[in-house]
């Protein structure tokens, strides 16, 4: 068996396979070979995703505490009952709803507008895209840390910018220290960091619209306003919805940025569900209770994602 000059690497590999192994492989069906290739991934998925999920559901019905070596008792739905009658957790749900609603609304508006502007052909738009995308590339911990400096009442740049436009004394307000301003402080930082992500996805959507549709609309003497609402928006909508889905899920479990920025304070006004959940699980060590909390959040996100994906498919079919 010598290599001919025309032999491909695959041919050479096939020849190098010992005959005994080659016979065995030849005996397998295509389906079996496919399973052999897919099995490690499925195993990994089961071990890393499905097993912990089932284990969490199991723990949610117990009084298990990970820091105590005592017998675990099954207590039925008592953890769920406690969570769903706890007014503090209700407040964290409201804080999360405020954060989710405003971040997504503002990011969609600014992100889509930026994408629409960048999509216009002008000199240096690649450079502008790179500059706009920069915040997204930073670590959330770093962003949280330097925004705490920007928000400092005495030395923070943010307060000086606000005072420049409003005339208010820069040290008269504290974005992360005041109960009424702190929820907006985290919305501003998340918007600053993640609007470029929405912009990029919308830009992909806008660039996928063929020019001939606009040319046909111009031939029909459609105004730019009408072109925007009847061509641009409907054709970029699936991309926009996808961006909202990604940001919605991400912001529902927002943790690092807010912990670094406000630590959930002042009081618990910016304590989002993921921060509260971490405190229950790893500070108070109420593992069973925290598991039930995680299951409630999981079902909520899963349910929302299901209807959202259905809506997305409908828009794509149009």
């Amino acid at each position, binding site marked *: 068996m010598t290599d001919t000059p025309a032999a491909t690497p695959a041919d050479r590999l096939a020849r190098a396979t010992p005959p005994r192994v080659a016979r065995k492989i030849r005996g397998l069906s295509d389906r079996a070979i496919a399973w052999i290739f897919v099995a490690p991934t499925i195993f990994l998925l089961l071990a890393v995703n499905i097993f912990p999920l089932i284990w969490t559901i199991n723990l949610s019905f117990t009084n298990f505490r990970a820091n105590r070596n005592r017998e675990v008792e099954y207590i039925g739905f008592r953890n*769920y009952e406690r969570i*769903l*009658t706890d*007014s503090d957790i*209700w407040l964290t*749900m*409201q804080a*999360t*709803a405020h954060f989710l609603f405003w971040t997504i609304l503002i990011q969609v508006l600014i992100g889509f507008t930026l994408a629409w502007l960048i999509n216009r052909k002008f000199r240096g738009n690649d450079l502008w895209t790179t500059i706009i995308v920069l915040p997204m590339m930073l670590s959330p911990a770093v962003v949280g840390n330097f925004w705490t400096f920007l928000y400092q009442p005495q030395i923070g740049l943010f307060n000086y910018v606000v005072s420049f436009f409003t005339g208010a004394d820069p040290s008269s307000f504290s974005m992360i220290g005041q109960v009424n301003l702190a929820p907006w402080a985290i919305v501003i930082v998340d918007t600053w960091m993640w609007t470029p992500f929405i912009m990029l996805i919308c830009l992909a959507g806008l660039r996928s619209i063929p020019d001939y549709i606009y040319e046909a609309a111009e031939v029909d003497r459609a105004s730019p306003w009408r072109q925007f609402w009847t061509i641009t928006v409907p054709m970029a909508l699936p991309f926009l919805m996808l961006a909202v889905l990604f940001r919605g899920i991400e912001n529902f479990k927002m943790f690092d940025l807010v912990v670094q920025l406000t630590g959930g304070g002042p009081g618990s006004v910016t304590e989002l569900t993921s921060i509260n959940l971490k405190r229950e699980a790893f500070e108070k060590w109420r593992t069973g209770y925290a598991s039930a909390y995680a299951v*409630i959040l999981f*079902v*909520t996100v*899963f*349910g*929302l994602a*299901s*209807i959202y994906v*259905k809506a997305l498919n409908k828009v794509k079919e149009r």
Partner: protein
Amino acid sequence: MRDFLSGLARLRRGPWEAVASALIGLGVVMLMQPFVMVAYTYSFIVTLTGTVMFLIVSHFPE
């Protein structure tokens, strides 16, 4: 409305998915609204019912 009801009666996917989606949406609103504590208490059962229903009815015929 009549089509919707007949779709429900004939176990068709569209109307049943609409019902499940409405339940999920209602559950999420109940979970995050700041007005009524009782609504918050029953939000999870509504969302769970909607989600399980959605998983089942998405296998119904069109």
